[in-house]
């Protein structure tokens, strides 16, 4: 299993901050595609991804126990 974190508008559209999904071994792009298929209201088009608190690329492989966070456009400061 991998754990997925949602923030800001993603958290509101999902109605939850965190979920576990059986997608170890997939790429970030595959995880995104899977989620968008399961949750048609979820759009990850302009969203960055972090794996274990580091920015990751679409081709990054996620491993068992990894934490994958979807990061919509940020607005701190």
């Amino acid at each position, binding site marked *: 299993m991998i754990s997925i974190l949602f923030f*800001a508008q993603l958290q509101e559209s999902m109605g939850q901050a965190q979920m576990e999904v059986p997608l170890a071994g997939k790429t970030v792009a595959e995880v995104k595609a899977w989620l968008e298929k399961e949750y048609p209201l979820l759009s990850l088009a302009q969203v960055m991804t972090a794996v274990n608190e580091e920015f990751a690329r679409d081709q990054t492989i996620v491993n068992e126990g990894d934490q994958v966070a979807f990061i919509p456009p940020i*607005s*701190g400061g």
Partner: protein
Amino acid sequence: MQENKFEIVDQPIDVEAMRAKVMDRNAGAVTLFIGTVREMTKGKKTLSLQYEAYAPMAIKMFEQIEREILEQWPDVRLAITHRVGLLAISDIAVVIAVSSPHRKVAYEANEFAIERIKQIVPIWKKEHWEDGTAWIGDQLENVPYPNGRPEEAE
């Protein structure tokens, strides 16, 4: 003195404590950037702001910003605290403290830090207006990210 250089807090930020964190006997200048909640943005009246952070990653990104600053300006000391939760107009959202032997570097490194915060630190603000709310993003018009993440600073 080295602990708590970078923090995400849900209470008001003590500006003087931020200055103290970067004080150094070799410092000849301290710059403090204080980001506050603005009422009017493009003609629209903000009632309050809500900030949310992915705190553990935000701290890591603050540490990355420190590494980038030390590469350019090795004699600088840096501390950053960002507040989360519900903030009112004029509340302090972020404080960046930089000390340096000389003033020019203290200004430059401080500006570099706020620009990088807006690029790479996972913090979001939600505007509450009289007629609704919205999560704000893309203030720098730097999305979408063709490589899936922000570009590294030079």
